[in-house]
């Protein structure tokens, strides 16, 4: 319990630290928001009025806390580029990125566990060794090139889907989910390779341990030993790796949305960076960092709960 409380306190501190860094980077360093919004032709009176409206003349920490509490209230500021609030701008995009990330996470879990088990069981056979090398090749392919290959092979060659076709979730929710599957695969493939390799290593390590020999000498069959003894221990650390992939899914979705033309947060992030639209950039980056950090904490706590060997007291 104490451990969990300590993790939660660390989580809050980390989030505050990140929000502070992002505030300094995007609100202070870029200079005067009023000037960048009005352009160089603005009169000094106009700039002064807008500075007042945006509270740019307030003291530093007052601005930080106003900004922070604004975030809690759902007031994310307004975009420099578009005459819209950041919340409006992000609203619809959030769904795309969220479901894209969820789909790829499901693909990772669904595919990597059986593949990892298979790799572990066949580690000594040629097929296992060949697959092991294949997973390394998969890990070396950047997700945007996987995406391009998927479009070329499965979209253009085999005509399994229509490239750059996007269905709005309001029109057909399943169509919306369906048109993101190729993108989800592009994000998932390198991670599937990574997780299944990790599981394979764990299986091999566990099968060298004493309890496995004990189980065999008690007369247990190979299948029984594998699924009841080895796998149970080998699969636990995979939870941590799966948690870590969330960060990389986030990073991957930024790139893959660009490849498949999906109108998600990644696309908005890149176009906002190109337009130097700092309020939008800061909110998206803050959001992504929050998701990653919160998920990591949840995975940590979850891991402690499911693995009885890790004491909760020390």
């Amino acid at each position, binding site marked *: 319990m104490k451990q969990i409380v300590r993790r939660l306190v660390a989580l809050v501190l*980390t989030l505050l630290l990140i929000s502070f860094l992002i505030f300094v980077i995007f609100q202070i360093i870029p200079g005067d928001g009023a000037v960048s919004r009005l352009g160089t032709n603005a009169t000094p009176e106009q700039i002064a009025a807008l500075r007042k409206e945006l509270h740019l003349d307030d003291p530093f920490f007052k601005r930080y806390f106003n900004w922070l509490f604004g975030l809690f209230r759902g007031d994310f500021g307004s975009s420099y580029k578009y005459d819209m609030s950041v919340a409006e701008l992000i609203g619809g995009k959030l769904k795309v990125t969220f479901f894209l990330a969820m789909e790829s996470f499901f693909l990772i879990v669904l595919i990597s566990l059986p593949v990892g088990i298979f790799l572990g069981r066949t580690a000594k056979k040629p097929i296992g060794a060949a697959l092991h090398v294949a997973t390394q090749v998969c890990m070396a392919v950047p997700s945007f090139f996987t995406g391009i290959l998927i479009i070329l092979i499965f979209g253009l060659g085999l005509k399994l889907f229509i490239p750059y076709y996007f269905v709005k979730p309001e029109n057909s929710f399943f169509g919306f989910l369906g048109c993101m599957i190729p993108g989800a695969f592009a994000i998932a493939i390198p991670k599937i390779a990574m997780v299944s390799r990790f599981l394979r290593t764990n299986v091999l390590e566990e099968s060298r341990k004493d309890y496995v020999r004990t189980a065999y000498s008690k007369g247990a069959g190979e299948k029984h030993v594998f699924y009841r003894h080895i796998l149970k221990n080998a699969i636990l650390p995979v939870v941590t790796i799966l948690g870590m992939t969330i960060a990389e899914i986030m990073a991957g979705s*930024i790139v893959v949305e660009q490849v498949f033309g999906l109108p998600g947060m990644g696309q908005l992030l890149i176009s906002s960076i190109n337009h130097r639209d700092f309020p939008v950039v800061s909110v998206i980056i803050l959001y992504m960092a929050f998701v990653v950090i919160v998920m990591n904490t949840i995975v940590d706590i979850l891991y402690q709960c499911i693995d009885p060997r890790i004491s909760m007291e020390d």
Partner: protein
Amino acid sequence: MRRFIRFWNKRNKYFHVGFILLAVLFLCVVVSYFWLPYDPTAMDPSMTGRGPSLTHIFGTDEYGRDVFSRVLVGMQDSFTIAFGVIAIGGLIGAVVGSLSGYLGGWLDEVIMRLNDSLISIPSILLALVMISLVGAGKYNVIVALGIAFIPSFARLVRGEVIKVKDAEYVRSAKLMGAGKLRIIFIHIFPNIFPTWMAGVAVGFNNAVLAESGLSFLGIGVSPPDASLGRMLAEAQSVMFSSPWCVIAPGIFLILLILAFSFVSENYSEKGV
């Protein structure tokens, strides 16, 4: 040479494959500085969008430029950027990590808290933050990714420093009156060098990946520089009519990343 043979024999077959691949690619890059099959920027209106042939082994792009020459030039940028990133991230990370690990106390606590929060954010996101401030371009990418790579190196080196900081040789150096900085950089660092090198091999792999990702998004290197990632982004618009324009840089990118990952595999299998 004999030392190299001994070094070679101690490594496994992954390392051999990776090393040879890397050597070939590196040789290509070195040669490309002196000689290229065609001028990578010369446009030939009579040869636009041709497929691979004997004269242009990877074909030509939509402006009639030779894809192979462009790939070679792109590799130069990918190599130099990865090198710069590791030089910044690896060196500063090593200094921060060893100071933090050796000195300990509140300094260590503060640095590691900061490090932990930065390490949980993907390095491409950190680099995006910096690039959105300073703008795109080759040198900005090097600095941004270099800074983004500091935390992982700092963590690696700190762990190793803590492991050896109470070793006999460190204590005897202390008894002889060596200063803290001397102990860290003259006595400890040579001993953790192999681990650091393993980190560098993994780091090169990640640096090439991250740079190509940034350049693909159009916020990495900017024209006239063209890394492999940028070439892929530019060629994406013609991928249906001339797919070789995306496949050639893609394959070289994969080979480059694969070479580094095979080299680092040797270390990771030993559990370093």
